[in-house]
């Protein structure tokens, strides 16, 4: 009994967002009959998928005390590359490889610029945000490009009843948790994020870790793009416009510190789910779309205050156990 309550307290301390999300889901299910259906949860999961994938990538970057404003532009440039290969009617495998390579390249550009120059990450990614979007515009000519059926497959197909976007998001989340918690890279990431100078003094490969985090974010942005365009069925110039703030909101909501070192992939996933659930709930309620911004801001505020409060009161009791 005692261990169970302890476990609960610990889970709550680690994921204060979990009860927030559960309350949200229960309240909406109570209010709207059609909300609490399997089909609707499936919808929410599909809709949250691209955000989860992109936000997991951003979590790695933010963990290094960096920031990536270029995520929306990366989505667009990856989609642009996809459309150009699609126009050349390349097979799906080739297109996917091209997209992944684009993502890796974009992430490396960001990572190398952040790690090897002393330009703040905010400025590097502010610049690359412009460059990537401009390059995407060149490739698409700002046209809407319909994707052929074999590239839309990811958006609509499913395996054992689980939609492909959800599978991709789940795999990303699981991979993220493993990389973060079980690998040397993950440990270095936390070390670099919490104290860069100490990490340097300890002889850790600080630059390589930083580059790795941005590269990972690039690849995941490309994967998010692939998922999103497959769902949309088309590549449009507005893809990813303003996405950086949504992604950062999901990450911050999940409890990752913008000063680096502290954060969680599970939290980010929950953050993305809370945002998507709230948005779906608003469509069900038929409220003005402007209310969504207010609700989103309110949830963010409540969540960070809750997280902060729990952190203070429970930290002393539980901190020794939580040291990783």
């Amino acid at each position: 009994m005692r261990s169970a309550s302890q476990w609960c307290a610990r889970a709550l301390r680690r994921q204060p967002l979990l009860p927030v999300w559960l309350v949200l889901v229960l309240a909406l299910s109570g209010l709207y009959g059609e909300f609490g259906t399997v089909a609707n949860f499936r919808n929410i999961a599909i809709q949250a998928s691209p955000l989860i994938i992109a936000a997991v990538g951003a979590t790695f970057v933010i963990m290094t005390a960096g920031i990536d404003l270029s995520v929306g532009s990366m989505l667009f440039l990856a989609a642009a590359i996809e459309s150009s290969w699609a126009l050349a009617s390349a097979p799906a495998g080739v297109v996917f490889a091209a997209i992944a390579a684009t993502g890796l390249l974009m992430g490396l550009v960001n990572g190398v610029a952040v790690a090897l120059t002393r330009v703040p990450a905010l400025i590097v990614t502010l610049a690359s945000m412009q460059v990537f979007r401009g390059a995407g515009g060149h490739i698409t000519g700002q046209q809407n490009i319909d994707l052929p059926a074999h590239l839309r497959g990811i958006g609509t197909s499913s395996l054992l009843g689980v939609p492909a976007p959800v599978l991709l998001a789940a795999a990303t989340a699981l991979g993220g948790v493993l990389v973060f918690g079980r690998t040397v890279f993950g440990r270095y990431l936390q070390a670099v994020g919490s104290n860069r100078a100490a990490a340097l003094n300890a002889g850790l490969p600080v630059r390589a870790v930083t580059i790795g985090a941005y590269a990972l974010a690039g690849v995941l942005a490309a994967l998010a793009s692939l998922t999103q365009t497959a769902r949309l069925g088309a590549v449009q110039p507005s893809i990813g416009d303003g996405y950086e703030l949504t992604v950062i909101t999901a990450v911050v909501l999940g409890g990752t510190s913008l000063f680096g070192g502290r954060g969680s992939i599970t939290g980010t996933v929950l953050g993305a789910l809370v945002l998507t659930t709230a948005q779906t709930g608003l469509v069900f309620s038929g409220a003005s779309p402007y209310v969504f911004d207010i609700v989103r801001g309110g949830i963010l505020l409540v969540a960070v205050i809750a997280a902060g409060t729990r952190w203070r009161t429970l930290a002393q009791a539980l901190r020794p156990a939580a040291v990783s």
Partner: protein
Amino acid sequence: MHAPTFIRWTAALAASALVLTGCGSSQKASGSDGSAKKITIGVSFDLLNAIRQAEKSAIEKATTEAGYEVVFTVADKDPQKQSSQIQDLIQTRKVDALIVIAQDGQQIASSVSLAKARNVPFIAIDRAVADQQNITFQITGDPVADGKLSAAEFVDAGKTKPLKVLELVGALTDQNAIGRRDGFNEALKGDPNVTVVSQVPTNWDPAQALDGTSNALQKNPDINAIFVPSDFLLPSVQSALKAAGRLAPVGDPGHVFLVTIDGDQNGCKAMRDKTLDADIATPVDDFGKQAISGITTALGGKSVSPNSVQTKGLSLDQANFATTSSQVWGCDGA
């Protein structure tokens, strides 16, 4: 200590010069033409997408025919940037006339008064400008009429089968979106066969259109018709239908009745593939032609009359497709 700094700055200078000249090479040509005293027209767009590209081509075609030069700027949906760009065009590039698609019909007013103060003809296209007295000429679509034309398609179809309609709405801050919505709803008022069961705002965002359509289909499974206020939201709507297992071609009993506005390449293709029932096409070519002829009149010292034109859209549906599609801009060369 000074040497590395010097090298650094030289490198920076070289790098920026390289970047700027590399991409600026296209600029050189028009720069050298300046001596020939060609008339230059400054164009300021709110953003660039498929329909704007078509409008851009229409303007380019009409200016080439008239023998004018064009300078394009795009404001990326930022009214302050648009105002700055217009200021640059008037005061530094010294253009002879302006063609503007306003990001905001009211906030463009200060640009209009600047143009007036400098005697630069100001032509507004596509989106109406509030300050009607001070502009030279305006040609826009008629969003209310386009909404009504769309509604007429629904009323027609409703005669054979009652329709429960999902209505997507563009950005609530855009007069074109509001006009289309209002025209549509007004024309449907009192029709016994057509009921709007759900209204979903999209903020002109394809992802929001996709999610909103999915959610609405989830909430109201009996929806059997969707009004899509712009062609570029069509792929989103069709993806949502496909995900819900509701995508079927025109004529199939499970088909969801679809009407869009714009008439771009995707819309035309969907008409040809018989997945779309009707598309209200915007007369984009007219915008370019009439804008340029307005400029020619104004530069000749005369005033343009009438100074405001609203062009109705052209209803393209499955019945008249064969005869009408040649007049729709999106069907060109497809």
